[in-house]
């Protein structure tokens, strides 16, 4: 029984720390860290030479491969290449903590100087990374770090989105699309996942604080993306007069889009997070999608790689580095793609823009 109480208390603390943003309106790190702009991470020419001479190696241990991870991965690969660090292994845990543990053990056979990773399950990830920590490998994380790990001693840094900024920018984009007033549907990620929770919360908080003429009249939690279509369908059926719908990320937003199309609804606007080609195409063609808020995912990869490389030559980093985000609309889509993913906008969208 006592253990149960302790656990609940622990959980409450975690909630408390992640809820801080709502009060002061900034992203905080998973352990309450203050954010520092990613641009602050720089290396001098001397340091770069020292790194290049070190013949270092790195391994990338991802939680799952997605468009987002891919962009981060590309950023890290490019930066490591620039610094003469060989990437010796790359893994995908498929959201499975047990597999991520196996992946860490496996890449250690190559004795990498650096492991860059996004922990599947931060609360219990200490066990996953302990073999690397013991081996003296430099650990640098994306989005979150294992509970109990100490910055500067056990890991180099955490690099993440400016999560509050993303939710905030989504709210601003929504207000812009609706002329600062209207009824909004809010589809949030119903899971204990720090990244989506902060973004969703920031959207809701911004609407509540800054836009008195906009109301969230319908809320729906989505635990399983595969069921997003039903959730969207239900929300639209019950509230046909919604002016806008916020969706926690782009893939479920496509389900909302298809539901709206199915209902012949051209009036309700969608704002969502992350770049996604079909959603962007709808936006460019003047459909329901009004804005896509994107993080500079590629830049996360560059930053985490650079910070990790710096640590090899004794340069320390701030505990929680955040990259900027941007609201991509019809007018800024080409630029947004470049900034976020370091890629040219897909041909279909480029054609539609002409």
């Amino acid at each position, binding site marked *: 029984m006592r253990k149960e109480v302790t656990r609940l208390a622990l959980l409450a603390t975690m909630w408390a720390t992640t809820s801080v943003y709502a009060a002061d309106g900034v992203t905080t790190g998973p352990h309450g860290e203050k954010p520092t702009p990613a641009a602050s991470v720089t290396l001098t020419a001397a340091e770069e030479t020292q790194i290049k001479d070190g013949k270092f190696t790195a391994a990338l241990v991802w939680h799952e491969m997605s468009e987002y991870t891919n962009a981060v991965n590309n950023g890290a690969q490019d930066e490591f290449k620039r610094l003469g660090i060989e*990437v010796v*292994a790359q893994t995908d845990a498929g959201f499975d903590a047990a597999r991520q*543990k196996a992946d860490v053990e*496996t890449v250690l056979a190559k*004795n990498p100087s650096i492991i860059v990773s996004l922990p599947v399950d931060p609360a219990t990830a200490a066990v996953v990374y302990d073999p690397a920590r013991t081996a003296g490998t430099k650990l640098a994380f994306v989005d979150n770090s294992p509970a109990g790990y100490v910055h500067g001693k056990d890991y180099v840094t955490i690099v993440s989105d400016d999560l509050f900024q993303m939710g905030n920018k989504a709210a601003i984009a929504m207000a812009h699309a609706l002329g600062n007033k209207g009824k909004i549907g809010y589809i949030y990620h119903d899971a204990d996942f720090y990244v989506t929770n902060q973004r969703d919360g920031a959207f809701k908080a911004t609407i509540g604080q800054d836009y008195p003429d906009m109301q969230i009249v319908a809320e729906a939690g989505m635990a399983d993306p595969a069921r997003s279509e039903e959730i969207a369908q239900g929300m639209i059926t019950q509230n046909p007069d919604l002016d806008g719908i916020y969706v926690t990320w782009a893939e479920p937003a496509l389900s909302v889009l298809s539901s709206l199309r199915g209902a012949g609804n051209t009036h309700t606007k969608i704002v969502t997070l992350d770049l996604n080609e079909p959603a962007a195409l709808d936006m460019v063609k003047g459909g329901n999608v009004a804005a896509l808020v994107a993080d500079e995912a590629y830049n996360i990869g560059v930053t985490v790689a650079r910070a990790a490389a710096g640590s090899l030559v004794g340069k320390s980093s701030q505990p929680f580095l955040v990259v900027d985000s941007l609201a991509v609309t019809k007018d800024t889509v080409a630029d947004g793609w470049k900034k976020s993913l370091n890629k040219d906008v897909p041909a279909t969208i480029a054609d539609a823009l002409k």
Partner: protein
Amino acid sequence: MPSANTAASGRPNGFANRINLQQYVVYFGFLAIFLFFAIVLRDSGFLTVRNLSNIVLQTAPATIMAIGLVFVMSAGEIDLSIGSTVAVSALAAAVTMNDYGLVAGVLAGLGAGLLVGLLNGALVAYVKLPSFLVTLATLGLFAGVSRSMTDLRSIPVTNGTFTGFFGSGAFLGIPSLIWWTAIAVAIGHLIYRETRFGAHVLAVGDNSRAAGVSGISVPRIRLTVLMISGGLAGLAGLLYAGRLQAAKYTLGETDLMTVIAAVIVGGTLLNGGKGSIIGALVGSLMMGMLNNGLILMGLSVSDQMIVRGLIILAAVAVSLREKSR
């Protein structure tokens, strides 16, 4: 009934070749992949004791699930629910252990697995529903149960005795996960090959009517194999919980296909009547070695998946082609 003419023609030579190939595909495959990695990755840590023992440790839960699946598939059934049974068992063990201690936790974990097996088994054996559909349904059902049990949270497992016994500990200098694998394989092999029960499982999978008229209780065999599979998936859940010192609803989700592939590559027929526990062990180690080696080769994640898929396809194609005629 097969016609006498086709059965009689060209028998002796084909017979000998077929038996050899189909039984040893997995061993040749294992050896070939091992040699390939040993040569290609000779300077990359593949051949270190630590890396090789990692492979065995990492595949321990999958190997134990595979043993259960050999029994199920040999009886002509399938158990897809193992993918979510692992998580339910691990979570049941973790939650119970934190409140009521070690023994209760272990019993809860194994009990959860056996209960899933009992449900599957009762529906297949007595309600006479196809196991594919029953376990497909319970796969989803218990995935839902494990998600709702803890609101998607992961539950830490702090009992040091448990994590030592089922996870990171060692006995006589040998890691406990290797003990578990060895014991499960040894007992599984003995029951499968040397007992009347094992013979009856094969008979039911081979020709359930013949087994029935020979006095074998076909429903009882079907129930039992599904309970064995559930119980072993429960044990796999305990091993995961011990190794990760935590339980989460995602445990085991990605194992199902690996385990099925390991069992089939290991020489167990999808339709029943023939199989091998040792083959499943080697099949499972082969899968683990493949994951390990492809990562160490420095391939991108997509390339790893493509190569792994092609190799599994080739192995399954060779072993299945030899078995059908």
